[in-house]
């Protein structure tokens, strides 16, 4: 997919964009392991973390209108929210595959789609965790670009 010719740090109109903060650093620690995750793995972990939070808090959703949900309706709504958490987990699994295919763009649009669906169901995921996902995606995209340019540079020299 062709990359937009926009200069890094500016939006489509050429205005300077506010810098996106870096995501949290994920470290796998314990047993014989001590390893820092790379940015793609960090995005995957951030997605899983968000999915876990959605599962845990799936009972807490907003209801609109005068009538309260009956218990079966509430359960159905909860299951719909859990299904969307599973979508995040599925996306995380796909992201793991994407690490091996740097030419494919990271599917951030799917994250926003799922979040919009959650909002429609009256569920608002933890904002901090969602922001961490956004930051992780930005960081992963930068990482992929730098790897790609390093690869291209090597090809030019080769």
């Amino acid at each position, binding site marked *: 997919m062709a990359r937009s010719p926009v200069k890094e740090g500016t939006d489509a109109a050429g205005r300077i964009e506010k810098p996106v903060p870096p995501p949290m650093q994920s*470290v*796998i620690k314990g*047993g014989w392991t001590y390893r820092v995750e790379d940015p793609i793995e960090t995005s995957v972990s951030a997605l899983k973390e968000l999915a876990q939070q959605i599962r845990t808090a799936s009972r807490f959703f907003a209801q609109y209108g005068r009538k309260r949900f009956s218990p079966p309706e509430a359960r159905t709504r909860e299951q719909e929210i859990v299904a969307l958490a599973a979508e995040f987990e599925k996306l995380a699994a796909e992201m793991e595959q994407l690490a091996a295919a740097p030419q494919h763009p990271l599917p951030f649009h799917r994250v926003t789609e799922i979040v919009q669906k959650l909002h429609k169901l009256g569920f608002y995921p933890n904002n901090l965790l969602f922001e961490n996902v956004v930051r992780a995606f930005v960081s992963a995209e930068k990482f992929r670009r730098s790897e790609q340019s390093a690869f291209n540079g090597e090809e030019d020299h080769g």
Partner: protein
Amino acid sequence: MDANEYLETLVAESYKRELDQEENVVRSLPFAAAALAVVSTIMVVIRGYVPSRAIGFYPAAVWIFLIAFGVSVALALCFLFLAVAAKRLQYLSPPNELYSYVIDLRKYYIAMGSSPQQAEQQVVEDTRSFMIEQYTIGAAHNQRVNLERSRTRTKAFATLIVSLALAFATVVIILAHGAMKRGDNGTISCQGRD
């Protein structure tokens, strides 16, 4: 001190506490090692006294205790393994990325027309909010991991104590049986000698 500064102090403290707690789980492992060493020594000592066939009350009792002991040691080792198994922890962003972020923020505010003093103030505010978020996410996540580890460690220690109790109980049974049968020093003999 403004509210954000106060909040930052609180969440940073909580984040550091969780990091310490994470190390505490590992630091408490020598206790487990010592308990395992004690039970191993006991087993080596009583090895020669274990009856070969589980027929009769005394041999059956010894073998039941030994089997229960083996199961509890296996469980303890299993829990210990789970307590130290690899888990994902959330740490603050790497220093080089934090540095780049602050530099980019400063450039951004200068480019937006802020004076250097204003820009510096805005950078401090943004960075503080960002760090509060990182401390909060990190503390919450690491606390969950630590709780899980601590629970597993508690189970491991509980089963180790059970193992110790079973090992001692086996020793007591063997000693009591020996004393009753042989009447060492002529003091505890119940059956007497012909």
